[in-house]
């Protein structure tokens, strides 16, 4: 049983999705989904423990040896990502039943959970697999169901946002497919480890450069890196609250994982960073993303959209950390990946609670909510502080590591720019605080009560995690550091 954990991680949610149809009672399906997600979390925890004690796990699907068969390869980075995704999914699902009752017609509840599980399975699959083509398949499983999830939003703009995301996402995925095809043409293999061994022999060919370019642009579309982020704000703003909380915390992280996997493991470091000017490109785009998106966030009137832009800015931080291409920089990126997942799931879930009570997330409706929904608003404030990077929150930890990595590398101006970027976060978080705490309540929202426990419990679990991992950084820093050390050794550094 234990040896099959890598495949069970993906198969369990994948198989559970059609089973939901048989249950077909909203509450039952919700409980079932919650259990499945919880199970996936337990599996990912076991996997992480196994990787920490005995190194990389290699699992051959159907007993076919790689490179002929598809292999699942779980190293520290994969296990770390799996834990993040399944943990966030489980916590977010606690509030799902209450939240979607207000936002989605009852007849579609079962379908909602099916799509949710498919998205979830797709993301886990992308992370677990060690086969480049398999990545594409899982990417499309998760993306197609994510488009449909976004289209379930109450507002008609959700449809338009979903359509735009579909167009951009499909172009991105097709780019990745072209890139993988070109790589296969040059090497005759799809296995990641095999590719990493065979690519160096042919890396000076134009085909390999083209393959690299296609893959990177495709992934950057998926990860909403500035200036390819146009699909993200609307998709996050108009999707059902639960979907936003889940996707904001996981979808872009999976794309970051792919970026790291392709640039560090499949193509090696010297190719990605010396033959291709990825460093300067990503540094400039990452910084531009931080400033443009943070500034745009300040002018938003819809709080969900505000935090969506802030997500793009936070991706900028991860990209900057990535562009240093040092162990410290990558550690900072991986840390921020974990920490940002905690912040954004807490924030968007709290916004879900606001949506549940007021039916809107317009900033103007937030007047006086500080008194009427004190616990929810307090959660948003703590999440906001974490976004800014105030000490004792997770945001501080990752910003600290990022700034230290920059200084270590001698990039003083970048470190200063990162800190300036944080000041912009102060502005947009303050706007919410000001409206919620210092303005009198609107007549229409005078009778609003605190959000139900179904929201408060998961939101506060996430908020407490935000503070806990901001103080006790042993788990996150150790794993992130070890994972980035691993990445610098390359895929073939592990013994089968």
């Amino acid at each position, binding site marked *: 049983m234990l040896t099959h954990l890598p495949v069970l991680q993906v198969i369990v949610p994948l198989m559970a999705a059609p089973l939901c149809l048989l249950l077909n009672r909203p509450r039952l399906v919700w409980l079932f989904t919650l259990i499945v997600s919880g199970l996936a979390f337990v599996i990912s925890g076991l996997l992480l423990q196994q990787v920490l004690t005995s190194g990389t796990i290699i699992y051959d699907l159907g007993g076919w040896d790689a490179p002929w068969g598809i292999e699942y390869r779980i190293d520290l980075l994969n296990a770390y990502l799996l834990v993040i995704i399944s943990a966030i999914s489980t916590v977010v699902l606690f509030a799902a039943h209450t939240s979607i009752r207000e936002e989605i017609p009852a007849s579609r509840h079962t379908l909602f959970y099916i799509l949710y599980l498919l998205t979830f399975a797709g993301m886990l699959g992308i992370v677990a697999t060690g086969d480049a*083509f398999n990545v*594409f*398949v899982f990417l*499309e499983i998760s993306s*197609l169901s994510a*488009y*449909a999830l976004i*289209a379930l939003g109450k507002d*008609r*703009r959700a*449809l*338009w946002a*979903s*359509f735009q995301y*579909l*167009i951009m996402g*499909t*172009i991105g*995925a*097709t780019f990745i*497919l*072209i890139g993988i*095809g070109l790589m*296969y*043409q040059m090497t005759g293999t*799809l296995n990641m480890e095999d590719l990493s061994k065979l690519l160096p022999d042919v890396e000076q060919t134009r085909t390999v450069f083209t393959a690299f370019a296609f893959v990177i642009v495709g992934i950057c579309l998926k990860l909403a890196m500035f200036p390819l982020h146009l699909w993200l704000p609307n998709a996050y703003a108009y999707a059902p609250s639960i979907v936003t909380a889940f996707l904001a915390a996981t979808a872009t992280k999976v794309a970051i994982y792919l970026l790291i996997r392709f640039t560090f493991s499949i193509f090696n470091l010297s190719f990605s960073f010396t033959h291709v000017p990825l460093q300067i490109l990503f540094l400039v785009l990452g910084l531009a993303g931080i400033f443009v998106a943070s500034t745009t966030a300040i002018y938003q*009137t819809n709080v969900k959209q505000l935090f969506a832009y802030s997500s793009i800015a936070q991706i900028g931080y991860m990209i900057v950390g990535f562009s240093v291409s040092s162990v410290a920089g990558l550690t900072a990126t991986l840390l921020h990946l974990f920490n940002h997942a905690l912040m954004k799931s807490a924030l968007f879930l709290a916004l879900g609670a606001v949506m549940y009570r007021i039916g809107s997330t317009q900033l103007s409706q937030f007047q006086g909510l500080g008194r009427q929904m004190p616990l929810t608003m307090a959660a948003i404030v703590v999440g906001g502080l974490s976004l800014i990077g105030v000490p004792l929150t997770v945001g501080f930890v990752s910003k600290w590591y990022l700034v230290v990595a920059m200084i270590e590398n001698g990039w003083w101006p970048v470190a200063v720019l990162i800190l300036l970027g944080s000041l912009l976060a102060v502005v947009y978080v303050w706007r919410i605080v000001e409206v919620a705490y210092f303005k009198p309540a609107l007549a229409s929202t005078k009778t609003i009560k605190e959000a139900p426990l179904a929201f408060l419990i998961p939101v506060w679990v996430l908020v407490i995690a935000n503070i806990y991992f901001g103080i006790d950084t042993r788990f996150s820093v150790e794993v992130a550091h070890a994972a980035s050390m691993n990445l610098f050794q390359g895929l073939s550094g592990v013994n089968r």
Partner: protein
Amino acid sequence: MILGLYNYWIVIILMMIGFYIVIAHGNLIKKIVGLTIFQTSVFIFYISMAKVDEGTAPILAEGINQYSNPLPHVLILTAIVVGIATTALALALAVRIKEAYGSIEEKDIQEKDNLDC
């Protein structure tokens, strides 16, 4: 050189046509058509690269020792299924957009969205 890589020229031409339609046209159905052409070009690309000179279909039979690589064919079967799913979903969304906005022109939809804000 040019004639020998004839398949790949077709791939690039189709890819660019599809990509251009997706970007340039405001009509949602046309966008979907463009997207499909774009994806199809990739299918042709995979199938072309599987071709081995003088090779036949990969069948275990007497006298056949040179055959085309079947793996890209299998891969692209998967990609075709994904493509169909994408097109179906896009068309379904287009129907819902038409119901909600009364138009499938990007310009009209954007205008109505701006009014809502």
